[in-house]
């Protein structure tokens, strides 16, 4: 059980670090958003589960579950709001897009 907690903790923090490196290396806002949200939330969830295995059933476990659930619920909404603002104010690097489903030509 302790070994499993360690593995989850290390994998989760590696995911966080990978996400941050992607945030530094990727060329435009939308790809940085992709790097900053998806691996990041998986990293937080793995870390939270790892700590939860270590803590065991208690009041603290409830707080951890709450933090994980709120992170899982709020991060996609926040990322959606940022990407929507970026698209609406036309800050998208169009040369990096393969398909633009939101452009006028793509709408039926």
């Amino acid at each position: 059980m302790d070994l499993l907690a360690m593995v989850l903790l290390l994998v989760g923090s590696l995911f966080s670090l990978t996400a941050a490196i992607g945030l530094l290396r990727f060329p435009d806002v939308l790809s940085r958003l992709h790097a900053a949200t998806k691996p990041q939330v998986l990293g937080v969830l793995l870390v939270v589960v790892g700590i939860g295995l270590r803590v065991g059933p208690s009041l603290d476990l409830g707080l951890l579950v709450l933090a994980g659930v709120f992170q899982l619920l709020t991060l996609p909404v926040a990322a959606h709001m940022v990407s929507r603002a970026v698209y609406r104010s036309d800050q998208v690097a169009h040369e990096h897009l393969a398909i633009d489903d939101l452009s006028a030509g793509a709408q039926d």
Partner: protein
Amino acid sequence: MSGLWTFALVLVAGAVLAAVWRALRGPTPADRAVAAEAVFVASVSAIAILSVLLDAPLLLDVALVAVLVGFLTTIGLSHFVDRTEDRT
């Protein structure tokens, strides 16, 4: 055993520092908003790991608050991103 926890904390702290660097560099307000979000998410992990290392369960409340504050921050910054350019 606690060495591995410290190592994980160092990894997450590196993630926080990289995101802070992106927030400082920009170049657009949208990049800063994304980076601020990443800073908050990574620091939630850091605070949770720290609560185990210091044996201070109260820090988990701080982590929960950081999740919600990070969400509100990103929503607010996204409105700012939308307003910085004049729309046609």
